[in-house]
């Protein structure tokens, strides 16, 4: 197997596996940690319905940030929406329900949001004071992934991205014909996925714990 065959045909499975493993490990580890000291933060939203309503509103609007830090909200909100849009439109695209254009638009939005946030972190006095190498690295890493994906998904080469991904999903990977820039995108995207659960961007898991297990803990 050549290096490019490995990246195109095997590496994606490894990354997904490691991503799920990492996320699962985090989840299970935190689930096993008892919160002996009760650290509830009142008021607690009423009942399961109230808590769900709060969570959904927060996830889809980032209301907390909107209220107190609107400049960052613009960036973060569009960043997360771009990620959501990317996944959503990718699925639609794979199912032939959507053209490739919205997928690429999501990537553009992602890239622009990231650049904006990096700029904001460097230029806002307080955000600059808080930001360490880690913050810039995470943002830049994702920006590079987004940029690489944009280049790779531009219409070129013999193989369509759709055929490639469908191939992966049906366990008949045939990546030999990926071009160099496409290989790079796959490689970087994979690295990012492996890194994600171990980085502090793991808040897609931690939020469950900080809200449900700590802030809203029952007596």
């Amino acid at each position, binding site marked *: 197997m050549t290096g490019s065959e490995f990246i195109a045909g095997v590496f994606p499975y490894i990354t997904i596996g490691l991503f799920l493993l990492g996320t699962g490990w985090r989840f299970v580890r*935190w689930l096993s*940690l*008892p*919160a*002996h*000291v*009760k*650290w*509830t*933060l*009142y*008021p*607690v939203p009423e009942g399961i319905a109230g808590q769900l309503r709060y969570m959904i509103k*927060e996830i889809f609007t*980032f209301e*907390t*940030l909107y*209220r*107190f*830090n609107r400049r*960052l909200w613009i960036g*973060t909100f569009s960043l997360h929406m771009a990620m959501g849009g990317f996944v959503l439109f990718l699925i639609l695209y794979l199912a032939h329900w959507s053209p490739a254009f919205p997928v690429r638009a999501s990537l553009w939005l992602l890239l622009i949001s990231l650049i904006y946030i990096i700029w904001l972190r460097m230029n806002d*006095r*307080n*955000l600059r*004071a*808080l*930001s*360490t*190498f*880690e*913050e810039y*690295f995470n943002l830049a890493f994702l920006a590079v992934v987004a940029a690489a994906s944009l280049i790779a998904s531009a219409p070129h080469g013999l193989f369509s991205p759709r055929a490639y991904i469908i191939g992966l999903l049906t366990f008949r990977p045939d990546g030999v014909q990926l071009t160099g820039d496409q290989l790079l995108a796959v490689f970087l995207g994979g690295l990012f996925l492996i890194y994600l659960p*171990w980085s*502090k961007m*793991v*808040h897609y898991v*931690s*939020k469950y*714990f*900080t*809200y449900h*297990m*700590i*802030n809203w803990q029952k007596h």
Partner: protein
Amino acid sequence: MSEIKDETRGADPKYAFRSEAPLPREERVARLLKTLEGILKAGIYDLPLEMYLNTCAKCNNCAEQCQVYQATGDVRDLPAWRSNLLRRVYRKHFTPSGKLFGRLVGAKEVTEEDIDAMVDGFYRCTMCRRCAVNCPLAVDNALITRIGRVILGDLGFAPKNMTGSVKTQLLDGGNTSAIPKAAFIDTLDFLEEELQDEAGVPIPIPRDVEGAEFLFAAPVSDYIMEADTLIGIAKTFHAAKASWTIGTENFDAINYGLFYSDEKLEKILNRLLAEARRLKCKTLVIGECGHATKAGLLFQKVYGRSEYQDIKIKSILEVSHRFLKEGRLRLDPAKNPDLVTYHDPCNLGRGAGLYEEPRELLRAAVMNYIEMTPTRGMNYCCGGGGGLVIAEDLHTWRMEVGGLKKVEQLRATKAKIVVAPCANCKKQLRELIQFHKLDMELAGLHDVLGKALVFEKNP
């Protein structure tokens, strides 16, 4: 990795408050790591601590909600910046990635200067938890402050008044205000006379009654400062025909351990529970005091001795509220005609969820009531929370920085009376009113309630 040793070790800077006996400078780093390790191992804070130390988006939302940062605009008052003083140490010494990648993942070796910054920083936070309410990741900087304080306490850093008061309290029969038993009894007698004068009927303050349902413990400073609160509470118990008592062996609910030492917290809490057990009381009722209530409610399970686990701990607000709901209190609001507003003590509001109980009591007891803005979960700290109110050295800071937001808020209500059912808040608000010349008076909740209670003469 070898580290370049700095030969010109600095001397201590001037700290904002005096501590009794800080460790020698060169021993602090090692001790800090040892203490932090102990806390991580003890497992009391497992989940919250691991969450808060590992995830913070550095979004700075917390600063926009912090009354301290809003007053100073100083970078070191950004809550996430301060928390990072501890977070980066934790990362460096207790996480694999931090050990491996160091600064690349925001980890940093702790230095003596970092510890100086902690002494400064962790006592510029009132642990009010307001910043946690709108943190997108639900990170609570107040808990990090608390852990930081516990570590610093182990290094010998804590305001002198605080550690001194705790020492006095932990003496046999001691209490934070060093009130001897004879003086205490004399005070109770005096209060009974006052009660008779006010209510026109004899109202006792029962002492050492075995088997009473409620053991009542006030923050002991009330017996010097807050006659009206105590009178109101005695009236309330009496009106409700409740079976209650005060224990003369230990009558001090204050637990400054909450602010700087888990070890002290545990001792103080168990002493109090022991008094409830001695008198065979089922319920320990904490007087108007936020931190003492929270220390009991949050830590009974982890630090209360197993033989005391059956003793219930309640705030006097819950108890009086229940009396009200059961129709056991006859109130005449006309006795309180002035415009009244309510200050949510952080430890009773965000810390214990007692938002509606005091309000329902007040609405039943006063003619005119106005909410502050913002209120309830987003109400501002008085600026003296987290025990800062007893650090005399921090008086100017409390008046000019910590309490600034509160003063604006109070002024805007145009109320004549601000009610705050917490000994810490009372002291701070009274000082704020004097310092900023507000046309307003401070009262406890039971001060107002007591005035409105009606008693039948010669039944």
